[in-house]
């Protein structure tokens, strides 16, 4: 295998506390090593360039039934953004929901090498994995929707968490997944009959439990199973004015699980759950309250779900939320897709506009949160692709974070009412490259429990991004535009020790790995006739045909986990 030596770059590696020092990075056999033989190694002269680990995205809807339905829904979106075939790369389309190959290419061009697919209905897992196989150049993992799964609900209602844990371990294996995803707990089941839950203590019809029970139950199960990532939570009441209170209550509900070592919960795209005001007319930011809570507590992490002002496509497993969004009016298409026994889903094409007061405040909330939460290891950068905006708009978000000037330039063009309500003018903080590296790779990898990703220490996976940014000569906050462009077009991207992007172009295509957890409980899940007959009652496919088989994963990376139950 080739050896590579990246010489003289400014290295930003927060995991190993390296903050812009000029140093060499050596790569051999797909890993970072201490040194290589310079005569044999391919030398990359990185002098004057910024070197980081490959980006790790912890929440981006890139594949699966929902995403694909979104693709099918929007020829009007694709026709704006056609991608030509080359000798090396396949053709495809963008814009807000790029086709699989284009997704891989675009991530790689931004220097990202790992992406989490955060919403996979268990029953549709095969489909998700078939699509993931077609996304080249990046490693990926999926989170299974388990918050409204009948087996989980029944066991939690019975207070039999051991049994619940065993079933969930089976499900994680059966769907080749990486984490427990909870979306509007209790709400999706209620949506089966067109209803929703509106607080943590509402009863879930027919099941005799509350959203609070589900969240606490699954958080407990998560620790019992020793999962590398925490529960990944999309809160109740998402997208409704005044919901920041529910969000804080949700975080409070998890306080007791904190042992002082690592976080116990992750709230995703929290921007959509940080709304204050009683209704849309009095809509305002609840970012300060959320940030204050997070600054005072250490048991949670969040990602922002930043709005980038794009004509995008919103999609979530939160079916009732999408319907309420549809009812606000102005949308021509609405998709709802319930999944028996497990989940729901909704899709609406949505254009976030600067001149719309609510949209502009939403944009502001995401940035306020990122700037007001003091510890960058708690808050991560996402756009909840494609909900807030497509993932290849990340460089725009970076610019708003590292440059006050960039924020002001955008805010100036926003709705006047929103400008008045925005807290951004009071915030002077500007992210450093070191902090940016935390919120885009080091912090996310840590939160996901992916020890070999997100950093450049010895033994780490050789995923490296090299950007045309010279921190010595450039004031990034003042010259935000060239830096923004540089983040969008890596000079080099190295994936597993192979150069895949060179001079901003794809030069090699290789499949990425699919990471999944083989969670072994002490006592395995009982697969007896009783379970099978229950299975037959609950689903419309046979037990034998349900699990994802090895056939569906082209390049697997199985991580064995020993559960404590």
């Amino acid at each position, binding site marked *: 295998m080739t050896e590579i030596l990246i010489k003289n770059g400014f290295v930003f590696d927060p995991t190993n506390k390296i903050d812009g020092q000029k140093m060499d990075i050596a790569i051999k056999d797909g890993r970072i090593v201490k040194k290589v033989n310079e005569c044999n190694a391919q030398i990359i002269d990185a002098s004057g360039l910024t070197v980081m680990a490959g980006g790790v995205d912890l929440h981006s809807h890139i*594949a699966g*039934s929902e995403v*694909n339905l979104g*693709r*099918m*829904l*929007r*020829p*009007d*979106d*694709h*026709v704006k953004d*056609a991608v*030509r*075939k080359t000798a090396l790369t*396949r*053709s*495809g*389309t963008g814009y807000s*929901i*790029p*086709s*699989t*190959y284009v997704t891989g290419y675009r991530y790689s061009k931004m220097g990202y090498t790992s992406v989490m697919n955060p919403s996979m209905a268990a*029953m*549709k897992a*095969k*489909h998700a994995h*078939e*699509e993931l196989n*077609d996304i080249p150049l990046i490693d990926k993992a999926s989170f299974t929707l388990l918050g409204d799964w009948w087996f989980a609900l029944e066991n939690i209602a019975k207070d039999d968490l051991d049994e619940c844990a065993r079933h969930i371990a089976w499900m994680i294996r059966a769907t080749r997944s990486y984490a427990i995803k909870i979306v509007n707990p209790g709400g999706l089941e209620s949506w*089966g*009959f*067109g209803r929703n839950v509106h607080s943590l203590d509402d009863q879930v019809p*027919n099941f005799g439990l509350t959203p609070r029970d589900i969240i606490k139950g699954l958080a407990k199960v998560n620790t019992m199973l020793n999962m590398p990532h925490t529960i990944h939570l999309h809160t109740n009441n998402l997208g409704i004015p005044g919901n920041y209170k529910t969000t804080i209550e949700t975080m409070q509900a998890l306080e007791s699980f904190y042992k002082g070592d690592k976080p116990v919960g992750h709230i995703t795209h929290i921007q959509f759950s940080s709304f204050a005001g009683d209704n849309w007319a009095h809509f305002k930011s609840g970012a300060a309250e959320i940030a204050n809570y997070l600054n005072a507590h250490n048991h949670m992490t969040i990602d922002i779900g930043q709005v980038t002002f794009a004509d995008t496509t919103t999609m979530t497993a939160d079916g009732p939320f999408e*319907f309420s969004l549809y*009812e606000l009016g102005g949308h*021509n*298409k*609405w*998709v*709802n*897709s*319930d*999944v*028996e*026994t497990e989940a729901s889903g909704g*899709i*609406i094409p949505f254009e976030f506009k600067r001149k719309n007061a609510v949209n502009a405040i939403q944009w502001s909330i995401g940035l306020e949160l990122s700037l007001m939460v003091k510890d960058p290891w708690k808050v991560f950068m996402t756009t909840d692709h494609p909900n807030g905006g497509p993932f290849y708009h990340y460089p725009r978000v970076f610019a708003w974070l590292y440059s006050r000037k960039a924020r002001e330039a955008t805010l100036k063009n926003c709705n006047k009412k929103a400008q008045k309500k925005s807290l951004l003018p009071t915030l002077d903080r500007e992210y450093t490259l070191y902090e940016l590296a935390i919120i885009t790779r080091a912090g996310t990898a840590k939160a996901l429990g992916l020890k070999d990703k997100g950093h450049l220490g010895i033994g780490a996976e050789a995923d490296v991004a090299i950007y045309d940014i010279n921190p010595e000569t450039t004031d990034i906050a003042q010259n935000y535009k060239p830096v923004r462009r540089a983040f969008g077009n890596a000079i080099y991207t190295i994936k597993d020790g192979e150069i895949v992007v060179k001079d901003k172009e794809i030069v090699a295509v290789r499949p990425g790995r699919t990471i999944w957890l083989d969670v072994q409980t002490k006592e395995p899940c009982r697969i007896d006739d009783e379970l099978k007959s229950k299975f037959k*009652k*609950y*689903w*419309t*496919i*046979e*037990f*034998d*045909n349900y699990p994802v*088989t090895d*056939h569906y994963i082209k390049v697997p990376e199985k991580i064995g986990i020993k559960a404590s139950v």
Partner: protein
Amino acid sequence: MGKIIKSVVCPICGCLCDDLEITVENNEIVKMKNGCAVCEAKMVHGYKSEERILEPHIRKNGKLVPVSMDEAICKAAQILTDAKYPLLFGWTSSSSETQHVGVELAEELGGALDNCCSVCHGPSVMAIQEIGIPTATLGQIRHRADLIVYWACDPWSSHPRHVERYTAFTEGRFEKSEFKGYVQKLKAQASQKKVALTMRRTQVRYQQADSQAATVEAPPQSLIRAGRKMVVFDVRKTMTADVADYFVKVEPNKDYEIFGAMRCLALDQELDVDVVGGVPVEYLREIVNVMVNAEFGAIFFGLGLTQSVGRFRNVEIAIALTRDLNRKTKFVVSPMRGHFNVTGANTVFAWQTGYPFALDFSQGYPQYNPGEFTANDLLRRGDNDATLVISADPGAHFPKSSVKNMLKHPLITINPDWNAISRLGDVVFPAQWCGIEQAGTAYRMDSIAISLKKVVEAPKGVPTDEEIIRQILEKVRVIKAQKTEKVEKLDDFGNKNIAGGN
């Protein structure tokens, strides 16, 4: 003793029933349990019929003669690369793994790519692109639906186990099966018939229902009861309508008007007209009330909407009605997606290109437009100059004039048996039966991926269609590379470089 294989998936309609029990003896299926009559026909008899193609054929001097696989592959690849604008059509009876390679081939060729959905539920896909769709997986309907509407479809004929597995006659968590009620109804009808017969014998004047008076009956009281109800809208009474609680006979090509009227009624609007599409507005109002009062309603629609006048607009307004009903209760709508893996073809094409069917790669990137790049439109206008048909039979299912235009240019076919299009082909490939001799993935009508099983070995020398497509793709690349070389040589003599691939 034969080997029994359980949980086998039926490779015929969009239901993809996966509970078949197959008995195999000496590499032959001898028995099938649980499946429907059509499934039995294919799995036990049809797949081993004498009509099987066992080796590749090429038409020479007007006659199909057996040739080697290599010769057939070379010929096919040559035809496709020589063509300025080839059409690749079919894909429905293939696994999604084959469809996957198919997109790559179409892209490499710069041709048009379409699947059978353009003649079945393509209009449904187009309607979804206009308006979205509130839908659900079939189990959701099984557990919750207390009102099931079949509109312009006859599942009893086209999806024989749909009612028994997913809707009215299945046991859900919150809704019970109505099968017993149906049996009682049957018995009651039978005794009525007996009475009528006796009366006729005893010369009592018996008033026979006039078959000419095809008026719509008023909605029965039974629609107001608790429990599952089934309503059928169709232009003719079908097997499905026979078991329904209520059958509404609509005039042909008037579905759109009826849906429009129902939408108004659901919004409590008054209508100026009294009868729409042969149905009194008062009846429609009652039906709408039943819909609004349902806990969970489901509309299934079939080709009666997508193939009659209006086509995708019919589906669009059906979806609009469902969407409106969601403001009052929970309602879902679902196309009765038809043949085998047609949903898979849409799915696979969409994730690779963004578009589900009607694709064109002539510009080096995917373009989409039904009506422009759909098989029948290309054939109607005579736009393409070679055709590859895989796992489909346009010979039997396209209008005559389309087939005539197809036959003006070379035709390559890949099918397991001598169906109509294979009989018409110029290069004819054999293929394995996907789901019987070949494993893979198929997508159910509600786009759930299900793994197909291989239960018997294919006849010797018969490859999978995936292998054939792969081999053609490789050969096409070789031919294109040779062409580029030629062009480069021409360049040395100062000629313009115009060909040379993409």
